[in-house]
C-alpha cells in the first residue's frame, strides 16, 4: 500500500505502486493524460507524488524500451524532411519531459552505446547538460568545469552586434562592435541560434609568448597594425535625456536656449552649440560639461511672500550637459512625448572606442586579459611565413587554469583559417583533434601548431618555437575610458565637507581605516594628518565655556554666544567632521567642552 499525493494533497492509496506508475506513464505517453504531468515514487517514504502545477523545470529525454531507444533513424529522416515536428515526437510518446523529481526514478544513458535493458531514457545529446551560453564554448569537454562557467560568463559581457536596428534605437549605455565576425571554430548552438546574425568577436592570430614582460599577470599585447585595421573597434552610445516636467500651479519646464536673466545662467559660450529649439545639432562634437539640451525650470519654492517680489519669477537653469569625463559626437536626436504627455528629448551621443591600454579582452575559455602594451606592427614578432600575430598571450595563463580547450581552439582555428572552412567544436561532439592536426600538417604546417618566430626588432630567430594559431577573441564592455578616474580637488559633501564618493560625482579615493593604519605603523604621523586635511576647518573656541564661538569678519571680532565678548577666544584647527559631531552632541543635550592648551 503506497499513499498517493496529487500536487501535495493526499488523494488515496494504491495497492501495487509499480503497476500504477507504469500505467500512468504509458497513459501519459499515449496522450490519455496530459503530457505535462509528472509522477515519481519516493522509496524512503513509500509515497507516490503526482505533479501538474507550474514552476517545475522539465527537460526532454528519449524514451527507451528494453534497451532500444524509441527514436529511430526513420524518425530522424522524417524530421529532416520536415514530415515530423518536435511536437509529433512528444505526441507519439518518443520523447517525454521529466521534472527533477521524476528524474530520480529514471536511469538515463548519456550515449546510445551505453544503453542496457535497465535504462529508461536516453539523453538527446550530452550537450544538453550545459546551458545555452556554455555550449558556445568550443571543446568544452577539454576544460576545467569552473573555467567553463567563467568562459560562458565572460561571453555575456562581450561587445557585438546587439541588435540589427540599432541606428533607430535609443539605448542606454550600449556598445557596438565595428567588424564582428563569425567564429571559425563553431558549435552546433552557433548555427541553431543564428549566431552569424549577431556575432560578438573577431578571429585573430594569437601567439603564446611573452614580450618584454608586458603581458605578465594575464595582460595581453596587441598589434598596433591590427587595431588600425579595425580590430576591436567599437562605438559607445549613451543618450542625454531631458523631460519637460509639469509642476503644481500649471508651471512646467521649458526646453529651449535659456535667457540671460535665468538663475544659474552659464555663459553664451556654453550654449553656442544649441539651435533655436534649445537642442544641439546632429554631428556636433561634444566633450564633458558641454550643454546638449537647454532647459529652464520654474523657481523651486513658491511662497506667498515671494509671489510679489521680482526675484521669484526668475526661472532656474536646468540644462542637461554631457557627464564628467565623457566625449563624443551627437549621433541622433529624438523628440517625442512620454506616457504622461510630457515633451521628451533624447540626444544620443556616439563615441568611437579604439582599443587602448586597459581594455579587456577574452577568449571563449575564461582566459581574460587586459591590454598591457600596444606594439607597432614593425616591432611585432613574425613567423617564418611572415605572419604577425594580432595578440600575444602569456604562456603562464595555461598550466594553473588547465584550459586545454583554449589550446585546441588555437590549432583548430589555424586549420580552419588555412583550409577555408568552419571547424565544429561542439562539446562532446567535436571534430576529432587528431584529424584536425593531420589536416594542419597536410596544409604545410607543423601538427603541433608551433612555428619558427623571429624577433620583431632585431630580426633574430627565437630559440624556442612559438605556438601560433587563430582564435576567436572578444572585446568586453569593461573599457578604461569608462573607468579611469583621478582627482586632486573637486566637489565636497555639504554635511561633512569631505570629498564626494564615486567616479560619477568626481569623488575622492578614500583613505580608509586600514590604509590609515599603515601610516600609523610607519609612524608617519604628520603625513597622515595631511591626508586627512580634506575637511579641516579653523573654528574660534571660547576659552571660558569651551563651545565654538563666533568670528565676525565684518568687525574682525571674536565673541562667545554664551559668555559675551569679554572672554578670550582662540582659533583651533580641527576636522569639520569633528565640529559636526560636537554640534550633534549639543543637539542631544550633551555639553562637549573644549579645554584649550597651548602646544608650545
Amino acid at each position, binding site marked *: 500500500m503506497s499513499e498517493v499525493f496529487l500536487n501535495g494533497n493526499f488523494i488515496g492509496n494504491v495497492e501495487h505502486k509499480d503497476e500504477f506508475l507504469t500505467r500512468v506513464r504509458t497513459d501519459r505517453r499515449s496522450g490519455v493524460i496530459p503530457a505535462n504531468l509528472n509522477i515519481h515514487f519516493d522509496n524512503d517514504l513509500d509515497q507516490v507524488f503526482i505533479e501538474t502545477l507550474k514552476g517545475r523545470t522539465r527537460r526532454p529525454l528519449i524514451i527507451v524500451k528494453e534497451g532500444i531507444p524509441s527514436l529511430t533513424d526513420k524518425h530522424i529522416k522524417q524530421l529532416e524532411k520536415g514530415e515530423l515536428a518536435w511536437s509529433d515526437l512528444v505526441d507519439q510518446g518518443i520523447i517525454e519531459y521529466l521534472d527533477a523529481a521524476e528524474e530520480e526514478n529514471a536511469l538515463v544513458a548519456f550515449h546510445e552505446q551505453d544503453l542496457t535493458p535497465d535504462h529508461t531514457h536516453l539523453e538527446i545529446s550530452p550537450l544538453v547538460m550545459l546551458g545555452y551560453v556554455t555550449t558556445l564554448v568550443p571543446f568544452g569537454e577539454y576544460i576545467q568545469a569552473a573555467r567553463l562557467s567563467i568562459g560562458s560568463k565572460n561571453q555575456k559581457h562581450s561587445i557585438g552586434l546587439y541588435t540589427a536596428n540599432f541606428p533607430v534605437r535609443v539605448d542606454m549605455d550600449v556598445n557596438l562592435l565595428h567588424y564582428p565576425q563569425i567564429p571559425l571554430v563553431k558549435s552546433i548552438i552557433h548555427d541553431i541560434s543564428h549566431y552569424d546574425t549577431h556575432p560578438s568577436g573577431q578571429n585573430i592570430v594569437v601567439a603564446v609568448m611573452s614580450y618584454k614582460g608586458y603581458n605578465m599577470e594575464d595582460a595581453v599585447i596587441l598589434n598596433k597594425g591590427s587595431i588600425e585595421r579595425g580590430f576591436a573597434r567599437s562605438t559607445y552610445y549613451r543618450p542625454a535625456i531631458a523631460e519637460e516636467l509639469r509642476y503644481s500651479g500649471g508651471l512646467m519646464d521649458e526646453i529651449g536656449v535659456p535667457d540671460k536673466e535665468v538663475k544659474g545662467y552659464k555663459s553664451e559660450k556654453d550654449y553656442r552649440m544649441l539651435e533655436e529649439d534649445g537642442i544641439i545639432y546632429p554631428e556636433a562634437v561634444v566633450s564633458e560639461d558641454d550643454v546638449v539640451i537647454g532647459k529652464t525650470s520654474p523657481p523651486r519654492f513658491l511662497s506667498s511672500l515671494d509671489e510679489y517680489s521680482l526675484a521669484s519669477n526668475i526661472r532656474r537653469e536646468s540644462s542637461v550637459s554631457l557627464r564628467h569625463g565623457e566625449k563624443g559626437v551627437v549621433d541622433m536626436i529624438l523628440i517625442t512625448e512620454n506616457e504622461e504627455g510630457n515633451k521628451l528629448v533624447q540626444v544620443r551621443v556616439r563615441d568611437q572606442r579604439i582599443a587602448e591600454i586597459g581594455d579587456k579582452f577574452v577568449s571563449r575559455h575564461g582566459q581574460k586579459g587586459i591590454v598591457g602594451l600596444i606594439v607597432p606592427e614593425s616591432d611585432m614578432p613574425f613567423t617564418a611565413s611572415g605572419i604577425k600575430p594580432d595578440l600575444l598571450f602569456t604562456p603562464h595563463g595555461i598550466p594553473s587554469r588547465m584550459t586545454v580547450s583554449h589550446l585546441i581552439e588555437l590549432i583548430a582555428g589555424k586549420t580552419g583559417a588555412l583550409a577555408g572552412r568552419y571547424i565544429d567544436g561542439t562539446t562532446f561532439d567535436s571534430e576529432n583533434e587528431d584529424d584536425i592536426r593531420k589536416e594542419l600538417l597536410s596544409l604545410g604546417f607543423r601538427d603541433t601548431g608551433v612555428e619558427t618566430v623571429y624577433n620583431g626588432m632585431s630580426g633574430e630567430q627565437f630559440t624556442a618555437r612559438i605556438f601560433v594559431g587563430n582564435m576567436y577573441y572578444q572585446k568586453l564592455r569593461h573599457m578604461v575610458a569608462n573607468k579611469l578616474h583621478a582627482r586632486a580637488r573637486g566637489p565636497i559633501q555639504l554635511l561633512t565637507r569631505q570629498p564626494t564618493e564615486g567616479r560619477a560625482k568626481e569623488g575622492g579615493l578614500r583613505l580608509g581605516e*586600514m590604509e*590609515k*593604519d599603515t601610516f*600609523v*605603523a*610607519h*609612524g*608617519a*604621523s*604628520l*603625513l*597622515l*594628518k595631511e591626508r*586627512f*586635511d580634506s*575637511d*579641516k576647518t579653523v573654528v574660534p573656541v571660547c576659552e571660558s565655556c569651551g563651545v565654538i564661538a563666533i568670528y565676525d569678519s565684518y568687525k574682525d571680532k571674536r565673541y562667545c554666544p554664551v559668555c559675551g565678548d569679554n572672554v578670550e577666544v582662540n582659533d583651533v*584647527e*580641527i*576636522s569639520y*567632521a*569633528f565640529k559636526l*559631531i560636537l554640534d550633534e*552632541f549639543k543637539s542631544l543635550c*550633551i*555639553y562637549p567642552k573644549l*579645554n584649550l592648551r597651548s*602646544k*608650545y
Partner: protein
Amino acid sequence: MHAELKKYSDKLPKSLLQEIEEKCPASKIKKVAARVYEEYCKTKIDAGEAVGLVSAESIGEPGTQMTLNTFHFAGVAEMNVTMGLPRIIEILDGRKSIATPMMEIFLKSPFNKGKDIHNIALRIKESILGEFVKEYVINIVDLKIELKLNLEKMGAIGVKHALLIKAIDKSLGKEVTSKEDGEGGLVVKLRGRDEKGLNDLYKIKEKLRSVYVCGIKGISQVLPVKRRDEFIVITAGSNMKKILDLDFVDETRTTSNDIYEIRKVLGIEATRQAIIDEVFKVIEAQALNVDIRHIMLVADTMCSSGEIKGITRYGVVSEKSSVLARASFETPIKHIINASLVGEIDFLNSVVENVMLNQPVPVGTGLPGLLTKVAK
C-alpha cells in the same frame, strides 16, 4: 662572572651574558661585550613605534587568509578540536566556556612507559550510569524501574553494584531507593509511592541515565597516545584541578586548552603562556608566519590586570582612557552618554581620537614636542 660582563648585568639579558662567557676567550670579552651591547640596542624597538597596531595588523592580516573552520583530528574521528579562526577568536575574546576543551595529561614514571595505561585512562574518564545500563524496564504496577546492566563493561572498568547504588543514592537519594534484584540488575523504587505517578517515573528514568558514577567530572573521552617515547593521555573535556591531584600525573607538564581553567588553577603567569601557546599553535597549524612577539604583546595586554580580559568591548577596549576611542569602537551611544553623565575628560593621548580631530597622532614623528617654552 667576568668583571667586564658585570658592567652589563643590568643592560643585557642573562642568557646573552652567559653565552658570551661560555663562548669567548677571557681576553676578548671586553670587546665582544661592547659589540653585543651595541647590536642589542639596535634591535630594540624605537620610542614612538606603534607596537600595538603593528601587532594587531600582523595577527589580523594572516587571519584573513585562514581557512574558516578546520578541525584537527587528534587520532580518533570523534575527538576533534576547534582550530583555525574560530579558535583564535575564542582565545582572544577570552571566552569562559570554549567549544572543545581538551587536556594533554603527562604521566610520571613508570606509567609514562605504558604501565597500566589502559586502566589509567579509564580511571580518568567520567562514567555515567547510562553507560552501564542495557535496558530500562518500567514497572507500572509496582511503580519501579528495573535496570538490566552491562556486566561486561562494568567488569572492565571495575565498577561493582554497590558503587552504582551508592552513586544513585548520592545524586537521587531523596527521591529513590535502589537495591540489587538478585539477577545482576538493579531495582529503583520511588520514595513515598502514594502521591507519585507514572510521570515521575519517567522523569526519574531520564535522571538515572545521567547519574555520575566514577572517574573525573568533565572528562568525556580519553585517548592514550604514544608521543615520541612516552605515553600520554589526551582527553576531551577538561578538569585541571582534579587531574593534577592524581598521584600518577606529571603536574609539571600536564596542560589544558581551557584558558580560564589555567587561570583558576595555575594563575595569571601560566595563563599568559597558555594564550601564547594556544594562539601560536593555531597559526602554526595553518602554516602562517607570525612573529611570536606580536602574540606575546596581545597576551600581555589580556593578562596585565591579573584577570583575563578579552579583546572585546567588555574587556580590553573598556579599559581605554579615551571616551572618543571607546565610542569609535562599538556601542558609541553608551559611551558618550555615560561620559556626559560623569563629565569625563578626554586628554587626546592616543591615536583614534587624534585622527577624529585631525591632529597629529602621538606616534612616530608626531610624538616629539618642544621642551622650550615659546615666548608669546
